[in-house]
């Protein structure tokens, strides 16, 4: 995992980064001027109080920035951290292996699961291969065949979601992106095994929901979940690209807000500043939560677990 690298500061973290730089500079001089120690201590205190207040008052767009942080742990990082011997399964069996959708067999504290998740890619080459985490229809069909596999062998399904959405492209339309997503929605609604989904970064629209019809849905603290990307929303409703912050605010897309709307079940805490500061602890916390949820769901009979999921989604909506 990429924890050894220093976290790249985000735009709203700039004051913090400047302070840290000053502290570094001061530290270098410390060996020559020991009397600077008191200053350094003071700065240290200032740094931590600024950090606390900064992360306490995050705007929705700041959460989005953290959710999109290039050093944020991705699906493969989680899989590898949870089960170093996980078995990757490739391909949709129809001609394509979409790297944006990762699938495999994992063991989490003794619970065997079929896991799928969207993968963004770390290096430029990776990113291109993974299409920046935006699956083609073939990616959803790969997930679909794994869902069917899980249902056949009575294995619970785990989905990790971190995608801006399904890819909008010529080939994607030609190969019927809509149908691929719709079929996944229907299939997940009907499986008789427990399904747990976790949004680890961006939960973007139908492309996220296509692997998100779960009995229990978890979200990391700084992750977001929305019906359209805030950029898309801003350009459609405000007809302007500079209203992204307003769109983030209006759509109520942060983990806390989504929890309040009753769409998800649990928010998992991240280390101060976001998951990219400490991959190890985020992976551990998320695993504990997932295992807890799975253990509870495994107490239900196959029919009950299916009914539970259908009832859950049946209830969503607000009307008079």
């Amino acid at each position, binding site marked *: 995992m990429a924890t050894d690298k220093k976290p790249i500061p985000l735009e709203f973290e700039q004051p913090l980064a400047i302070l840290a730089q000053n502290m570094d500079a001061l530290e270098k001089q410390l060996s020559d001027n020991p009397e600077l120690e008191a200053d350094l201590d003071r700065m240290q205190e200032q740094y931590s109080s600024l950090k606390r207040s900064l992360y306490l008052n995050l705007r929705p767009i700041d959460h989005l920035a953290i959710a999109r942080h290039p050093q944020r742990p991705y699906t493969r990082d989680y899989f590898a951290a949870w089960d170093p011997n996980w078995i990757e399964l490739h391909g949709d069996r129809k001609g394509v292996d979409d790297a944006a959708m990762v699938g495999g067999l994992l063991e989490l504290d003794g619970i065997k699961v079929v896991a799928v998740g969207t993968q963004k890619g770390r290096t430029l080459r990776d990113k291109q291969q993974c299409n920046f985490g935006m699956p083609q229809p073939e990616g959803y069909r790969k997930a679909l065949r794994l869902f069917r596999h899980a249902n056949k062998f009575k294995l619970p399904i785990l989905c990790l979601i971190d995608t801006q959405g*399904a*890819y*909008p*492209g*010529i080939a*994607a*339309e*030609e*190969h*019927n*992106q*809509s*149908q691929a*997503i*719709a*079929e996944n*929605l*229907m299939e997940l*609604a*009907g499986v008789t095994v427990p399904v747990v989904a976790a949004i680890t970064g961006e939960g973007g*629209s*139908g492309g996220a*929901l*296509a692997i*998100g*019809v779960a009995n229990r849905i978890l979200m990391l603290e700084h992750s977001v*979940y*929305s*019906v*359209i990307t805030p950029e*898309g*929303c801003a350009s*459609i*409703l*405000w007809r302007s690209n500079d209203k992204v912050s*307003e*769109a983030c605010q*209006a*759509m*109520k*897309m942060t983990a806390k807000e*989504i929890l309040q*709307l009753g*769409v998800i079940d649990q928010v998992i805490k991240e280390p101060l500043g976001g998951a990219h500061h400490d991959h190890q602890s985020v992976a551990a916390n998320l695993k504990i939560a997932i295992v807890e949820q799975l253990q509870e769901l495994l107490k239900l009979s196959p029919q009950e677990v299916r009914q539970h*999921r*259908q009832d859950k*989604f*049946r209830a*969503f*909506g*607000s*009307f*008079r």
Partner: protein
Amino acid sequence: MDLKDWFASRQKRREIQEVITQPLTTEEYCALWKQCFQCRELLYTRDLRTNLDVCPKCDYHFRIGALDRIEQLADENSFEELDADMRSSDPLNFFDTEAYTKRQDEASRKSGLREAVLTGICKIEGQTTALGCMDFGHFGGSMGSVVGEKVTRLTEAAIERKSPLIVVCSSGGARMQEGILSLMQMAKTSSVLKSFSDAGGLYISILTEPTFGGVTASFAMLGDFIIAEPGARIGFAGRRVIEQTIRQKLPADFQTAEYLLKHGQVDMVVSRNKLKATLARLITFHQSSASELEIEDNSSENSNGQGSSEPKPLGARN
């Protein structure tokens, strides 16, 4: 007749003539005439209407509203609306440049509808069918909580009545103003359609100009049969979004019904004037399992049990 009278009546006639020859206002003119978007032919509105809003010259299919659609598909006076009073609330207190509640009122004023879908039970050539029609004229046909709920309840009604289900889709996608709850409607409708499918129900989805986004990626694409109207644009992502993403011009026929047909995404492209007959034929073709219901229905209506003597629909297999 007195000569004076003759002059008076002559004068009157001239006045009437003058009234008639006065040019029509633009509004009156537009109400009377329409220009075809495709071939530019001027069409007399009344003729256009009798031709189901299809250009008689070039077969261009004009967009039609939910009410017209119901009139075209359902047998006369057979449509009984479900959940007619259901209205959206404003779960997010959404405000962009205007409040969502205000936009809703505006949309209703423009379309004359409460929501972007009308659902109900009707008869199509005598066969009881659950029918939902979306209306692009109301809020771009977007799917919020109400559209999702109405389609879900319609499907549940179809399960209960063991009747086939038809949904005429026309939508710009999910309704952003209801945020994540709109997205969840995709899962909700797909989930109930799974139950419907497991119960052996026949679902026919009709895609009309335009069908996009969250609606296409849920119930629109889940039909046992998917029928598209000629020339309708259907897709997941909008043309502009794709062009901006890939920075390429797209072919002219991209995402049209015919393009979808070529790429194996729809069963057939059916002209509006053949649509009702096609639906009726598809329903009768799959009648065998649903015929139990007909007998049940009749026996409850006729206490002396003459139900079985009712003529069976053509092609029904028992």
